[in-house]
């Protein structure tokens, strides 16, 4: 490895961040997100329209000649940081990253890819959210050209217009949502719900081979999830610091107590490290250099930091952190679910053992 990854943000990336953050500030306030989690439509379709129709963000990874923006994983990472910071209930990671990456690995998918890039069609890969890149994944049966079976733990399934379903003939099938039944599961993460997908003689269109498509999709997802986790952790730290400067106890701002200052400084240090790890993975995915190690390193580091940041935020907010109306719980639920998504830290460390030749006993 002679070249170093570019770990900074370009001016264009900072401009993109500012635009996304402005939009989320205006259209994704915490009280609305909390209210929406208890409604029949956990996903914010208006916000999705603003992000995709308005800003073209669903097509960042798609080449221009296929209707996309022809950007890279670096820009997607910046968008995910901001979506994480707002725990935005939109299927961006699942549709604009996972389903899109799966289709980019397939030949027979041009039309669908263009639909996903526009954001007017939402896609979901029908592989359980917790699976590690490279892990075996359940498939459905193909009989007489129709699909039969059930798949659980599918993230954002209820929002999807098209599901990409792996089948026992090795193919990946695009199935329109009205051909399947989606049964919502009660999810730990209220802002990225999972569901069960049931196929009974469902018609599908084979878009390519499942194995390489799923592998590519999950690897990009794992690498870019670190940026969402960075956004979550950064919000948790920033909001806790702000609160502890205002909140007084024993006639002093709580943030002036050394025990708490040290905890926050330690957390800051971990967030700084997480930023480097997440940037490393995004840049590796964009350049194709050193991808497997960079993704595994980022994912092995990111999840514990994001969870700890959310847990510290809750603890340091005291009683108010335990309430439903304060958004801390949304971040904790998302951070904990993220720690399982696309492989746990332990699973990525196990992958690293092979990649960097540190074999188990």
């Amino acid at each position, binding site marked *: 490895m002679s070249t170093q990854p570019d770990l900074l943000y370009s001016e264009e990336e900072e401009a993109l961040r500012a635009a996304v953050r402005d939009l989320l500030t205006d259209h994704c306030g915490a009280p609305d997100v909390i209210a929406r989690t208890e409604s029949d439509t956990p996903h914010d379709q208006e916000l999705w329209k603003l992000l995709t129709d308005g800003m073209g963000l669903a097509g960042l990874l798609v080449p221009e000649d296929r209707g996309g923006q022809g950007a890279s994983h670096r820009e997607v990472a910046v968008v995910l940081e901001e979506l994480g910071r707002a725990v935005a209930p939109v299927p961006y990671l699942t549709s604009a990253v996972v389903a899109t990456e799966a289709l980019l690995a397939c030949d027979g998918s041009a039309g669908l890819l263009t639909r996903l890039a526009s954001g007017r069609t939402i896609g979901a890969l029908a592989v359980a959210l917790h699976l590690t890149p490279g892990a075996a994944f359940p498939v459905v049966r193909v009989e007489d050209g129709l699909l039969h079976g059930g798949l659980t733990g599918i993230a954002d399934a209820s929002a999807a217009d098209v599901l990409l379903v792996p089948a026992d003939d090795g193919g990946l099938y695009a199935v329109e949502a009205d051909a399947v039944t989606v049964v919502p599961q009660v999810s730990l993460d209220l802002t990225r719900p999972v569901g069960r997908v049931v196929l009974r003689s469902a018609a599908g269109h084979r878009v390519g081979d499942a194995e390489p498509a799923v592998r590519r999709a999950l690897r990009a997802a794992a690498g870019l999830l670190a940026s969402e986790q960075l956004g979550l952790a950064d919000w948790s730290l920033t909001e806790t*610091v702000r609160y*502890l400067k205002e909140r007084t106890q024993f006639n002093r701002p709580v943030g002036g107590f050394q025990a708490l200052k040290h905890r926050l400084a330690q957390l800051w240090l971990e967030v700084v*490290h997480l930023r*480097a790890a997440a940037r490393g993975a995004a840049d590796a995915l964009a350049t194709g250099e050193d991808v497997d190690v960079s993704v595994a390193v980022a994912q092995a580091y990111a999840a514990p930091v994001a969870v700890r940041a959310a847990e510290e935020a809750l603890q340091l907010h005291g009683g108010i952190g335990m309430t439903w109306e304060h958004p801390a719980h949304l971040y904790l639920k998302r951070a904990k679910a993220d720690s399982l998504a696309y492989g746990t830290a332990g699973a990525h460390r196990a992958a690293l053992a092979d990649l960097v030749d*540190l074999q188990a*006993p």
Partner: protein
Amino acid sequence: MTDAAELRRRTQELLTAYPPASTDRLDFLKARFDAGLAWVHYPEGLGGLGAPRSLQAVVDAELEAAGAPDNDPRRIGIGLGMAAPTILRYGTEEQKQRYLRPLWTGEEVWCQLFSEPGAGSDLAALGTRAVREGDAWVVNGQKVWTSSAHLARWAILIARTDPDVPKHQGITYFVCDMTDPGVEVRPLRQITGEAEFNEVFLTDVRIPESRRLGEIGDGWRVAQTTLMNERVSIGGMRLPREGGMIGPVSKTWRERPELRTHDLHQRLLKLWVEAEVARLTGERLRQQLVAGQPGPEGSGMKLAFARLNQEISGLEVELLGEEGLLYDDWTMRRPELVDFTGRDAGYRYLRSKGNSIEGGTSEVLLNIVAERVLGLPAEPRTDKDVAWKDLAR
């Protein structure tokens, strides 16, 4: 404006005039300094060309390719990292001319006389006195943890010149001649068995007024320049993957499968990840500096490396099993520099305990991060408006 092409041209000129193969090492280093290629961001006439700091890499790469001798930067680290930037910023023209060239070539080694037995983390509490007598200052006191004092020609020194004002205001910064009468250096044997540090006793040492650096009573501000540069250099090394302490332990793991256990495997992988992420963080900091956008990340790098070094070296001792019960050599020696890789795991384990103490304890650095980076309220202070002489000691 000096650009990369111009620096390459000048470097080639130097190599032509002083072919490394047939030139004496010191002569080459002097010529390099005089050509402005020592530290290109320094001013002309002082070893530089006033070029952007980032272009130093261009010069270094050309010289390395040509097999040119270097100035052994680790051996003269205190001079390069702490004394030089302070002299450059606060020194008189005469002082810059006198000190910088032999400092850079390594002819004169520098040490740093800051810490005292009663003033470590609370450095501004120092009690070494400097009293004006005509054209000189008479210094009395004791310093501690002084690396390289037994090799040094010069020292940067802070001493109290006014005990009647609050502690930060009564300090003055000097250059001390280590060969002067009254300077006594005693080895300070440490936990590792060796004496990397010294105690320095100063008894009626006369420092001429011409060796004062900065204004009388302004020493604390001058020292901030020194300390900032120290922390940057401690945390700002550029490393390849597995370039730090994780390297030797990974190597042992690969070469000696009989030592492996599941528990150690889990801990090794976790630390490997953390070491790689710390390396990326350092690299990101370096890229920010090159881009002219220094971030606050530097404040935390030393904290991260201290903890990592300690955990990794502790794991390494355990990994070695029966060998972990042994130690390579307890002989009291006075090394020229800290050599982590030349010694065994037990040495690394013990020496790394100092990483969270030297150059500011981790606890004090956490306070600094909390206050300066996160903007949290400062610790309550009882020493702020009290004359130094009235403080508890």
